Structures are given as structure tokens and as C-alpha cells.
């Protein structure tokens, strides 16, 4: 029997919004795929670009960064910095010819459990279409 491909999506979720949002999705018993592997970070701007690369190196098919909506950051400006950084990371991935579709940034607040479930579903579907991360085999060992 052919094993079905389940993507692995490393998710860096900010403690104050997205992680709590994911929690809410859980307590509200919303269905979302098991492909999401949540990692709690204190702020979306804590996510160093090297984390993303390390995630791909360790076999992730996609990376999701979740943060508070602009203006709602617990540290006031963290997500604005994360947004700038993410724009540049995406552009560098594009320039190198890597698939920047495997990187996502989403604003999910603590009250948006349903949104978290929706983002998780949509993103997993998108990664399913893209298939396994090719760089996993070809460059990243």
C-alpha cells in the first residue's frame, strides 16, 4: 500500500496571539491537519531567518510564521520588524530559485481559533499540491 504523503509544516507561533489562537482552535474542537508542528516563540520577530533554513534542513515541507495583527504586538513593534524581515527572506528565496511558496507568514490573533484552523487547512492543501520538499533530497542532504 502506498503511504500517503503527510507534509510537515514547522510553525513558529507567537506566544501571545497565534499560539493562543491555536489553543483556542483546539479547545473549540475545530478540525485541522496534523501536519502543523507548532513551536512557541515569544514574538514573531524572534524568528531568525536561520530558523527557517534549519527547518528546511531538518526536512520540513513548509514553514509557517504566526504573529499578532499589525498594531497588536505584545512588544508593540515586533511584528512590523518580522514583516520586513520576512519580505526580504522571501525575495532571497525567490532569487536563489528556491520555492518561496513554502514560506508563509500569517497574522492570527488569540481570538481567531477558526482562522488558525482555516490557515492550517489551506496551507496543508497547498503543500500537498507542491509535494515533498525537493531541496530535502537535492541540497539539504
Amino acid at each position: 500500500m502506498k503511504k500517503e504523503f503527510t507534509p510537515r509544516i514547522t510553525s513558529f507561533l507567537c506566544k501571545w496571539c497565534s499560539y493562543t489562537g491555536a489553543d483556542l482552535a483546539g479547545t473549540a474542537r475545530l478540525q485541522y491537519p496534523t501536519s502543523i508542528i507548532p513551536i512557541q516563540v515569544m514574538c514573531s520577530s524572534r524568528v531568525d531567518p536561520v530558523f527557517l533554513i534549519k527547518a528546511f534542513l531538518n526536512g520540513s515541507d513548509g514553514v509557517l510564521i504566526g504573529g499578532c495583527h499589525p498594531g497588536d504586538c505584545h512588544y508593540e513593534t515586533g511584528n512590523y520588524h518580522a514583516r520586513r524581515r520576512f519580505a526580504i527572506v522571501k525575495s532571497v528565496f525567490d532569487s536563489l530559485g528556491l520555492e518561496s511558496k513554502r514560506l508563509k507568514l500569517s497574522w492570527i490573533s488569540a481570538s481567531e481559533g477558526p482562522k488558525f484552523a482555516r490557515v492550517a487547512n489551506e496551507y496543508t492543501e497547498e503543500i500537498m499540491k507542491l509535494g515533498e520538499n525537493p531541496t530535502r533530497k537535492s541540497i539539504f542532504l
Partner: protein
Amino acid sequence: MNIVSDLRKAIKELLADKKIDLFIGWEKGSLPLSATPLFITSEDEADRAVFDITCGNNLSIYFTKDRKQFADKKVGIAVKGCDARSVVLNILEKQIDRENVVIVGVPCHGVLDKKKVLAKTDGREVLELTDNGDTVTVIGKGYELSFDRSEILSSSCLACIYPDAQEYDMFVGEPRAEVPNENRLKEIKEFEALSTSERWAHTREEYEKCIRCYACRNVCPSCYCNVCFVDQNDPGWIGNTCEFTDSIIFHVIRNLHVAGRCVECGACARACPMDINLLLLNRKVAWEVKDRFGDIAGLDINGKPAMVDFREDEKQDFIMG
């Protein structure tokens, strides 16, 4: 040459008036193709200073990499356009105080790329180089070649729009503001037009050459972390081999670290022993920063480096959901 004598005069004045304790400039190198950094503390030595096509070193690296030496000293520094932007960036990043530095601008017409000269001479040793303005003559054992200046300029200079310092205390000659350059985005646009797989092929071809000597990092005025992420082993972000897997991580992360801070001086590309086109990605990122955030690194001394600044109403077309 006129510029050189004016530069020497300026240095002498600065040192004689005790406006500075130390001057950093260039002197004639022991090899004909590269000038050597010069450090002088007394006016008698000022006649050693030169400025010509071989003065490629971005001298602002001494402010960051040797910062302890300059702690309470007033330093004068000779700068080309790109070096001036580095100095401004160092000031913005609080590596040196504006009051402690006297920026002496020199009119730059591009610096040479040693590798391009050696390609012209088929690798034969060059014993003498004469800069005649539009043409450059090199003399070696049993040959003499003359070529157009543009043929041997560093690729960063060919796309340069700020050849002269925009922030300076003194300028030798007449400073130019922004100079239009039709080649500014040529290389980037050509690269952007390629398909994803072609770009990936290009990436592989270029970065597979890397031997991880870190010359690019050491020569970069914007790279000055006390412990570079490649030297860290806890956590070890990156393997220690020069396989493509490891070297590409090094280059991607270095690029991201200098995003919005790269002044496109081309020092990395000139220092690279394997002739990797390091500038392309740097310039691509610099252009992306300009395009998205409207910042050009090191131009505005009252501004902020792009990556520590933000605007609330920025374009966020990539946000999901």
C-alpha cells in the same frame, strides 16, 4: 596628480591643526595592482598617501573590526562614495561617534578588479600599472598592454550611482551628487527575467565554487559580529564543510544579515578567490529594500538602517489569510 597632492595637503592640515589624531588612507602597495591601507599620525608622513584606481579597500572596516584601537581617538578617513556610505552606516549603528570622525571625500572613478586584469594578461605577473585616465597600461616581463578603463573596473563600479561621498567634512575636488547610470539595474533585471529553474542552476553553479575561506565576510564593512554565526558551535547552525549544502546557508544568511546595510562596494566580490558573483544577490536584496521600503543604505545620516525601521502601512502582499 592633482587629486593626490590636494589629498596630501588636506591630511597635512588636519594633522597640523590637531583636528585628528590618526588618518586612514591608502599608500602605494608592494604589489602594483593593490594599494595598501595607510595609517599616519604625523604630518611628515602625509606624502605617502595616494589615490588611484588600485585603492579598492573599503577603509571603514577598521572602525568596526578594530574598534578598540580607535576608542577615544579622532580619526580622519579617506573615502570613496561607497566607503562614505559604510562610514555613515557605522555611525548609525553606533560603532563610532560622528564627532570622532573626519570624513575626507575623494572623487572616485571606479576601482579595478585584479581578477579582470589578470584575465587580460593571461595570468602573467604585472610589474607596473599606470592609470592614464580613460585607459590603463600594465607592464610586465616582456609585454605591455593597454586597455579601456571600463574593461577592468570592478563590477560594483560599473553599476555605481554614488561615486562620491554624500556625507563628508572635506572634499578633495568637486563632489558629484547622484550620477545616472544606465547599467544600474541591468544585471538584476536580466537575472530576474530567468525562470526559477534557471536561477537555481545559476545559484548552484556559483555557490558550488565556495571554499568557505570567509574572505567576503572579513572584508565586508557591514559584517562585524563579535562571534559570527558560522563560528558558533552551540547551537551549531551550519556544518563545517565546503559542500554546497553548507556554503549556500552561509551565503544566504550572510546576505540576510547585510540586507538593507550593504552599500554595494563590491569588496566581497573582489576578495573572493573563487570568483563567485557575490554582488548579484547583494544588489538584488539592496534593490528589493529600495523598492519595498524606499531606503538606500548609508545615504541618510539622520535615518535608520532599513531593517530596524518600519512603517505601519507597508505593502504586505505576502500575508496569508
